[in-house]
Structure formats: C-alpha cells, structure tokens
C-alpha cells in the first residue's frame, strides 16, 4: 500500500458507490431505507478510514509533496488535457476533513431523514457532493478541478431546493445557481486562456510559465488568468459581491446546510486560492485584490451577522466572516494558518449548524437568562459610533446593505435588459421574414 494506491482508492470508491446507487435506482427504483443505510454505513466508514489513513501516512512518513501524472485524457497538436493529481498538505488535509465530516453528516442524516420523502434523493446528492469534493481536492489541473467544482455546485443547488414544494426554497436555490454559474465562468475562462497561452492548466505548470509570459510581454495575460481564478473562488465562498445567496440558502434539511455552508462546499473558495497560490502570489496586485475582497467581506458579514436574529442565517454570516479573514490570511501569505483556520472553522460551524435547534433549550437552561434580564454582550466596535449614526448603521446592516437589490439590478441591466433587446430584435426579424415570405407567396 502506498500513497498512490490510497489516492486511487480514494477517488474510485465514491464514484463506484454513486454509480452503483444510480444503477440500482434505474433497475429497482429507490433503495429501501434500511438497505440504503447499510450501504452508506459501509461506504462512509471506508471513506473515513481512507481519508484518515492517507493523512496519517502523509505526515508520519513525511512524504514530500508530489504530482501523480497519468496519461493525458486526450491531446491535440500542442494542446493536451493532462490527468494530474496532487498529493500535498492541502489535498491530504482537505481530503481527510471532507471524509470525516461527510461520515459524521451521513450518520446524522440516518435518523434525521428517517421516513422523509425524498431521502434517497438526499443521500444520492450527498454522495455526489463527495465525488465532487474529492475531485477538487486532488485535482492537479484546472480542467479536472472544474468537473468536481460543477458537481459540488449542482448538488448544492439541488439540496437547497430539497423541499421543492416550498416556493421560497426553489427561488432561493435559483439565486445560488446564478451566483455559482457566473463564477464558474471564471474557471472556464482561466482554463481556456491557460490552454491557449501556456499549453497547460496544471497548477504547477502554470506557475512555471509565468516567467515566460512575462518575458514574451504577455504579462497582462497572467493578470487576467489570475483575476479569473479569484473571480471563480468568490461565489463558492460567498465573498463580496456574491454574498447575497448564502443567507437565503438555509432552506434544505439542517445537515445539508451544515455540510455545504458550514463546512465543505463553502471552504472550496479559499481552497482554490491556496491551490493556485504559487501562481497568484507572483504579483502583488492579485494578492492585494484577494486581501481587499476578504477584508471587505469580513467587515460586511460581521456587521450584518450581528443584527441577525435567527439561528441559521446568523451562522451563515459567521461562516462568511471567517472566510473573509481566511482570504486576508491567504493574501498575506499565511497559507498554513489559512489551512488550519479552514479546518477549524469547518468543524466549528458544522457542529453549530447541527445543534442549531438546541438554542431555545440552551437559553432556557442557562442560569443567567430569566425574565426582565438584560443579557450582557461584551464590548464591541459599533458602540464607539455616535448614537444617530449607529442607528442608521443598524438599519442598513439589518437590510444587508441592500446587496440583493444592487446585485439584482446589476444583473437586470447587464444581462436581462440586453437579452430582452435581442428578443425584440428577434421578433423584428421574424416580422421581416414573414413579410418577405408573404410577398414571395403572393407572387
């Protein structure tokens, strides 16, 4: 057993499992609940053991980071779609984190979703999420990462709309979808440019090519690719300006909120940045942008978050705040700290999400909480602001600084309106066409 075998198993098992689930569904319909639980127990134990073994193996034997190069998927002339997987601190730690949290969530969901309509759908989607995560985790090129990235995004949207009989769930899932799609274009664009100019999208290769680009006077291309990668990381991590969807995404069952927005999916944003860090860090402008976005998001999210009064959106903002901090850490070059922060934040938030329903009981059993008491909060920054201004700040923070309004309007003017113009043009074309056809027919 060596690192590579572990890697292959780690990649193969979730995919094989999901394919089996899908096959059984097509042959026999959804599995009976008991059987589904048995299958998932086996799979999640395997996944957790593999993830942890890999982590242990990597650190005990002090294995240096390396890339696993497999024969390319396909190549055409000088373009080649490589199959590269990376083994390093980042992939091993994040892989183990995903495996552990996923197994816990699966066990939690057994009882939580018992007898629930659509439980097969739920467990299938969670499985698909893990496939996506594990691909993103070990991916050595932007192309492979993109496949996993898409899987995570799609399952996330589908699970927000898990209770699809609720109109608001579906509406909010579409909000998330729009944000995801817009930012996914970032990866696509970065990958296309990288293919074109550097003939590789592997993270290591890209970092090595920066010098050449600079040398050939194509430095702006480096900046563009960098910007696209940063852009791509924003929606998943709910950073500004793509923050509005996250608090609205709390519509699915609690464990799915925990695994996506407390833990695994949301930390993929900083994960991508860490993955591309050797590439991005080569120019200060890119790291500065990361830092600015992170800082702004942290300020925004903490102000809005402290005015929230419901358990789940409050947690969403708390997660977002720390993600902003993680972005700042990355921009300052503290990669190890960022990774530890990610792991710690993921674990804390999923724990808080899972217990979100206990809040009433918690406060009830707290000896300091009773009638006509004022709960003391510790000193905080906003109390330094003079009264009237503080009141205004409160109102705007409560209204999330109207981010939803601005983004919706932006989308409206940037996309919807122009497309509507096209529609008008199309209608005009049709009319002209009809006229011509009419004339021809008359003749």
């Amino acid at each position, binding site marked *: 057993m060596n690192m590579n075998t572990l890697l292959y198993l780690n990649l193969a098992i979730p995919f094989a499992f999901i394919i089996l689930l899908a096959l059984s569904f097509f042959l026999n319909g959804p599995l009976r609940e008991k059987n589904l639980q048995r299958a998932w127990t086996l799979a999640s134990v395997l996944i957790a053991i593999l993830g942890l073994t890999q982590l242990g193996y990597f650190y005990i034997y002090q294995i240096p980071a390396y890339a696993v190069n497999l024969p390319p998927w396909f190549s055409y002339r000088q373009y080649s779609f490589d199959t590269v997987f990376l083994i390093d601190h980042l992939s091993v730690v994040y892989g183990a984190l995903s495996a552990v949290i996923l197994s816990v969530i699966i066990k939690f969901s057994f*009882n939580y979703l018992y007898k629930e309509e659509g439980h097969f759908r739920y467990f299938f989607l969670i499985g698909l999420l893990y496939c996506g995560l594990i691909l993103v985790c070990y991916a050595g090129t932007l192309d492979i990462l993109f496949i996993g990235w898409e899987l995570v995004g799609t399952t996330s949207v589908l699970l927000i709309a898990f209770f699809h009989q609720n109109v608001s769930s579906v509406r909010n899932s579409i909000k998330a979808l729009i944000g995801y799609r817009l930012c996914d274009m970032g990866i696509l664009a970065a990958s296309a440019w990288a293919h074109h100019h550097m003939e590789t999208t592997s993270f290591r290769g890209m970092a090595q090519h920066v010098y050449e680009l600079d040398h050939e006077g194509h430095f702006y291309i480096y900046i563009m690719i960098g910007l696209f990668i940063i852009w791509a990381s924003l929606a998943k991590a709910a950073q500004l300006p793509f923050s509005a969807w996250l608090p609205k995404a709390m519509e699915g069952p609690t464990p799915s909120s925990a695994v996506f927005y407390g833990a695994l999916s949301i930390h993929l944003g900083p994960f991508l940045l860490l993955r591309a860090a050797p590439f991005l860090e080569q120019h200060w402008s890119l790291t500065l942008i990361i830092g600015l976005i992170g800082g702004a998001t942290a300020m925004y999210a903490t102000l809005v978050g402290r005015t929230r009064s*419901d358990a789940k959106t409050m947690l969403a903002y708390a997660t977002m705040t720390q993600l902003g901090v993680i972005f700042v850490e990355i921009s300052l070059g503290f990669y190890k700290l960022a990774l530890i922060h990610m792991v710690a934040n993921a674990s804390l938030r999923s724990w808080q999400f899972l217990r979100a329903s206990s809040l009433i009981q918690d406060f009830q059993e707290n*000896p300091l909480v009773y009638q006509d008491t004022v709960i003391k909060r510790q000193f905080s920054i906003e109390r330094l602001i003079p009264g009237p201004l503080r009141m205004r700040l409160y109102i705007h923070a409560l209204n999330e600084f109207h981010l939803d309004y601005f983004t919706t309007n932006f989308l409206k003017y940037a996309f919807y309106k122009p497309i509507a113009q096209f529609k008008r043009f199309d209608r005009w074309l049709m009319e002209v066409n009809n006229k011509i056809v009419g004339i021809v027919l008359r003749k």
Partner: protein
Amino acid sequence: MSSHQYSFERMQKSIRSKLPIQNPLQTFVHNNILMMFEDKKFHTALRDASFYYQARPYREEDFFIDHFKAGRITDKDIEDIYDSYFKVYGDIKLPHGLENEKRFWKKLLFADHLRIHPRKILTVTNQDLWQKAYELFTAPESRFKFSYKRSLRLKSYWREEYDESMEQYSYPLVIRLLSSFLDQGMSFWPNPFAKKGLWAFFIYSLNETAAMEDEWVKELNNKVQAYLVKGFSVSEILEQELLAREFDPDQQENYLLEILFDLKGWSGMINKLELEPHQAPLKAPKCSLEEYTAILLLIENTLNQHLAKKYSLDLATLFSQSDDIVLSKMESSLLIYEMSKLTENPEIWINQLTTTTAQDALEQLMIFNRHHRLPLWQEAYEQHFYCESLNSILVHQKNDRSIPQKPKYQLSFCIDDREESIRRHVEEVAPEIATFGVVGFFNVDMKFSGINQRRLVAQCPPVVTPRKIIREVCHSHGETGVKSQNSHDNWGRYLLSVYYNSRTLIRGFLVSLVLGLASFIPLTMKVLMPRTASKLRRMALNIITPVPKTKLLLDKVSETEGYSKEEMAGIVKSLFDICSFKNYYSDFIVMVSHGASSANNPFKQAYGCGACGGNQGFPNARAFSTMANDPEVRKILRTQGMDIPDTSYIQAAFHDTTSDSIIFLNEELTPERYAADLTYLKKVFKEACERNAWERCQRFNSSSAIKDQKSAQMHVRERAEDLAQPRPEYGHNRVALAVVGKRDLTKNIFLNHRSFLCTYDWETDPHGEVLTQVMLGCVPVCVNINMDYYFSHVDNEKFGCGSKLPLNVTSLLGVMTGAQSDLRIGLARQMVELHEPMRILVLIEAPRARIMNIVDNNPRLKKMSYNLWMKFVIKDPETKEVLIFNGEEFLPYQAEELILPNFASSSELIRKTATKIDFAHIGVSV
C-alpha cells in the same frame, strides 16, 4: 372624526380572540388551536376557521375511503351517525323530488364521480336519460352563489392571473422587521427600537432604506410620509387605509383578519406579547397589534395599487369581482345525469325536474360537497372507535379486576396517556401496588424558579392561574452552596460568551481557531455515539458545575411567595380526596411526576407534562411530598378529619417518558426505615420501565430489530440523547380516550396508551366537590391536547408547523421554515404522524345529575360538551346505564357483545401482536 369610534378599537376584541394562540416555545403548552371558536358547534366552527387558516380541517377523502375499505369504518357506523348529524347540521335539504330518499346523501359519499376531487371521468351510458338531463338546461352556463365567506383580498387573483405572489414582495420586509424587533437576545447587536415600538422602527427603517429598495417600497414610503406630514396618528392611518375600500363593518373585520392571518404566527405572537408581556422569555418589546395591523394594511394596499398600475388595471373593478361558481351547460347536465343514477328511479326523478329545481339540486350537491361530505366521514370514523372502545371497556367490567384492598404501596401518577402503560406494567410486576391517576401538578399551583432555570415558569395547567412563587435554593447555605451556585453562573456566562463571540469578527477568529479544532470531539462523539458522549459530558459537567443539594422554599415569605401551613393542608387534602384512599394510608406513598428529555428539540415543552404547563413535573412532586410530610400540615389535616398515620411517608419520584426511567427525588431526605421500600420499588420500576420501553418501541418502525425489553430500554435512552432524532418519543399520538372513574373500570385492560386515566370515586363524594375539581382539572387539559394533535395532524402545513427538518429557531420565540417564513404554529409533522384524528371520548363514572350540575355551571365545559368538541359519555353507577350526550340530550348506549382477546401479560401481548390491537384483557381468567 372625534365623536365616532375608530374601527380598529371597535373590532380589536373580536380580532384578537380569533388569532391563533401563539406562545413562545419556552412556555409552549397544548392549546385547542381553535379555542376561541368553541362557542360554535364543532363542524361549524371548523368551517369558519378553515376560511381564515386556508386549511382543510379534516383528513382528505381518500383517508376515509381507505379506512372504509379496511373495515375501520363500516356501513353501520355511517348509519349510526347519519340522522343525528343532519339533525345538528341541518343547513341542507334534499333535492326536489327526493324528499323521501332519506339516505340519498349516503349514496353520494360513495359516488366516485361526484367527490370533491373526482377520480372518475363522467361518462354517459344511458342515452335516453342523458338527453333529458341535457335538455333541462337552456342557458349556456349556470351561476351559483354561496353564503360562505369569500376572500376580500386580491392575493389569489394576482397569483392566478399574473403569477405575482404578494408574499414575495412583502414577506422579506415584514419578517425582517419582526424577527429583529421581537428578538429576545439571539443577535449580538440588540434592536435599538425595542422601547420605541414597532411603528417607530417601521417608519425609521422605511425612510432610511426606501431609496435602495424596489419601486413599491418607494411608493409605500411616499404614502407613509404623506400621512406623517399631515400629522396622522397610527389609528388615523389605519382608519384611512380601511376607508380606501367601501366595506361594511363586518367585512372590515374579515378583511383585517385575512391580512393578519397571512402571517398568522407573527400576528399571534405580537398579540400575545402585547397582552401578556410576562410570557416573553426575557423581556417583551413594546408590541401593539394596532401598529402591526396598520403596517400590514399599508403594505397590502400599496401592493394592490402597485400591481394594478403595473398591469394597467382598475382596482375598483377588481374589488367588485365576484367568485361565483360557474358551470357550463355540459357540466351541469352531466352532474344531474350522474345524480339521477344514484336515485331509486332515475327516469321519474329527471322527468319531474325543471330548470330551477335542477339548478337547486346542483346547489345542494355543491353544499354537500363543501360542507358535509368530510364531516360525515369524520363522524363515522369516530363512531367506529367510540363503539369499539365503549364495548371493550363495558365487556371488561364482567371480569374479575382484582384491586388490592389494603395495597402495600400507593402510587399516584399523572393522568397522562403515556402513564397508562407504565401504570399497567407496574401493577403487573407488583400486584400489591395500587395506582391512582391525578392531574400531574398535584394541585401545587406555583410559579417555579429553579437554581439553573431561574425563569419563573407556571407549573400548573394553563386553565389554572398560579397563586404562589416557589424558589429552589441550595440546601446548605454555607460556602459549598454559594460556590456551586457561582460555578453554575460562571458556566452560564461561558456558554453565552462562546455563543456570541464565536460569531463575531476578531473574537470569532480566536474562538474558531481555539474551539474549532476542539469541536471535532463533540461533533464526532455526539453523532456517532450519543449515549457515551452524553455520559462523558455529564461527568465533565459534574466536575465543573457540581450539582448542589437543593430544597424548595415552601414556607410563606410574603403574600406572593410561599404557602402558609393552612394552604399546604388544603393542597394535600384536595389531592388525597381525589385519590380517595378511604382513610387507608400505606406506609409508603409515592407521587410520580413525569416529563421528557430530548436533545436538539425546539418543541421540548410539547413533550413535557401537560398538567405542569409542558414542563417537567418534578418540582411539583417534590413540593407536594414536602408538604405532606410536614408534621404541622398533618396536624391541621387531622383536625379536618384526614388522619395520615405517622408511619406513612410520602415520597416524590420522576418518570422520564422518553428514556423510560423512574428516579426517586430527594432520596437523602427519606428516613432510614424506608430503605427497604426504596430498594424494592426501584426494582419494580426498573422492570416496569423496561417493559414499557418495549411496548413503546413497537411504534418506532426502526425498532424492528428490538427483540426484548433490555434492548428496547437501550434504544429509548439513545433516542433521548440523539441530536439527530426528530422523534425522541411519540408523545400523545393516537390519544382518543379519557376515563374518569375508579381504577376498576380500567384495571387489567390494555388500552395501548390511548387513554387519559383520571381517578375519581363517586361513592366517597356525595356532594360532587371532588368531581368539580377533577373535571375542571382534567377535561379541558385532555380536550386541549387532543385538539392540538387533531389540527396539527389533519393539515400539518396550515394548522401545524410542517416538517421538523428545515426549521430555524428565530428570536428565541419560535421557529421558521428555512431562512425566512411565517412563525410556525402548532406541532411538527414528525410529532403527530401516527395520530388518529378524532375528538376525544370522555367517559365519566358518576351519577348523571352530579356531572351535569358541574358542566352547566362551567362555561368552558359547557361549550365543549354542548358544542360537541368531545364525545361525552356518562356511566351512571346508580341507574347502571351508559349515556351518550349528543349535544342536546342523553341517549342510552346499548353495548354490543364482543370477545376481547386475552393475554397473560402485557409482554405477551407485545410479543404476539406488536401492539397492533387497541384493546385486550390482560391476565383475566376467563
């Protein structure tokens, strides 16, 4: 304007009474959600309420049809209730020409093509008949007007015609305001408007944000500002907005109610906190239903105007639209054709119809479908169970039901249906024990403040107003007590600080780094092995915050705190009178209170002891036993003729209905000489609890692997600790009976915990004083619980709070579904899914005159019985008759012979039938 009363002032009493009773979840107790409709007959009230709640107040028709097919409703049941139903609810007449066919409606019940949602397509087989039916109608369409209330809002119009949902516009704005305004301490930054009121918050927030909101919000702001410039008060604005439409006063009220019911949970909460601010978990902000109504009305009117402008419509014409039901000529004639086929002689009936009588027949058909179809099914469904249960209980009376005359132990349990099974098991394990059922607050009507839960909670049924405050304090006043108290306070401070600080920016950074990695331990432990994790947690907590020995401060301190010895004697006497010990007191008497334990459950109060306001009952048991053991109290009692011997000791105990364990409270105070009794009873309780757990496990599907009582006990303990468990226990599911009478009525009969059991001995109470107490304490509580389950079950989305899975605790007051929604009312689907929705059968064993004297003198009881909110049955021991009350008079019930299965013990029954049956003899020698 000054001379005439504002509309809202005039209407508010009636409006307030119709809003749902919404308690903060911390003080949540079961209520009949339609309590304010109780002055109407049951089905009429449901008809009215269903309009406001937009709900279906019965199960769907298929539910009843399936039951009919399975034999759970029989032809005889329908026959039984048919006449009496139409006697009470007679606002329908048989179609012209069918006056002699009294059973016509019954035929309609089974007509698949004439159902509310028909399952068959209407087809024509008899051409002749069809021709005649077709010729009856000359106009291309027929219109039908109904007397039922119709919606005055345009909400459904916008949705159906323009696919515009008003909720999508208004909910984000209103809910954001409310959730923040009412917040009790969840958010880090408290709302600065709590003292200034909702209206001030609304105006300020609107004015500040309108520029960056959608077009309609800007219109709303302009409107409000225009009013403010004119110097209008809230009442005047409300009045103006109401006058915008030409309503008669009755419509005004309905319109406001409809708007308020759109967000019924929040409306109910505002109403509650305005009227009873002390119900708030911490401190209620300055609420006013008037301000709230004004806000909602302003939004409603602005949205209507906005949408009308958007689609260039005229509002006045929209308002005057009618929603008559319109049937085409084809539809009308097909319906008449199908109806005719149900009559005895179709040809003759059709031949004598004219256009008007045919139209009238159709109208009656629609009235039947709308108002009577489901109620008829419901009545038949209930009737089946009522007959079965009465027959079973009556047939059981012929058997030997040995009750120990001089029992070694006397145990008082709560009347709760969950205690039915544990009492049965205790009696089976130790036949020398006698059990009694009393309302589980043991007549100690107090507001209790524990050392850890200092919030004053009313430990009594919601119908009783607590008289006194009782506090729990550390037993030793010395240093250890103070230290322990401090450690609890510090722990509380630490928890709060982690709660707030883990969510902020800089402190959140530190907390998430430090506690984040550590939180892997609870995360994995608590999910993967809940029982071990809880055990470890308890051990750790015992070290950090040692649990001090505590006592209750019962003695009178002031007018509001503590009881005088006379009051204590009164409490003890009234309770022992109910038990009617007949002046025999065994050496060891145990008061068993009960409560539930569950993790991660916002509805904890709904599982607790209904008689203790949904809390755990142990403070009451402790208080009662302390009072009853007090020598001074006993001295007073002796002067009143109640001689409790000095050898008798009254012990308090607590039954956890979720994890099924009974523990003794304040064991250290029990005198040494009762040590043997304690040990013996512990053994009995252990065995009984295991058996009870096994019986309960039959209801959990997941427990099919549970083969014996030991594994069952482990299983239920795990349920109580499991974070992921949406169903820690099934609470009052399937409750349908309340039996008030001697234990021999129900001894040795298996009731599948479907019955409240309340002890009452008619022989020792000639004047009916005890009966008054028993009935007032027990019947309203039973009906409340039963109705709460009924409504949450029949339409879980509208009367209940939907699935538990996406619930989101908000403002420490209640739960929303997902990120933003109405505050949910009622119970969650997972809590009521096994329930059988029927009104409770209350069987009282006492002379009829004595009972009716009480019923007629108590308004609530009178309403509930005369308006048929329960099935009221009297077993008159003097005339030996069983009488059923039908809302007007008592009719004698003729019990049918039936053979009940007989089992040697409850355990045998569980093994053989998996509690699939509801009634059986236990251990009866036949």
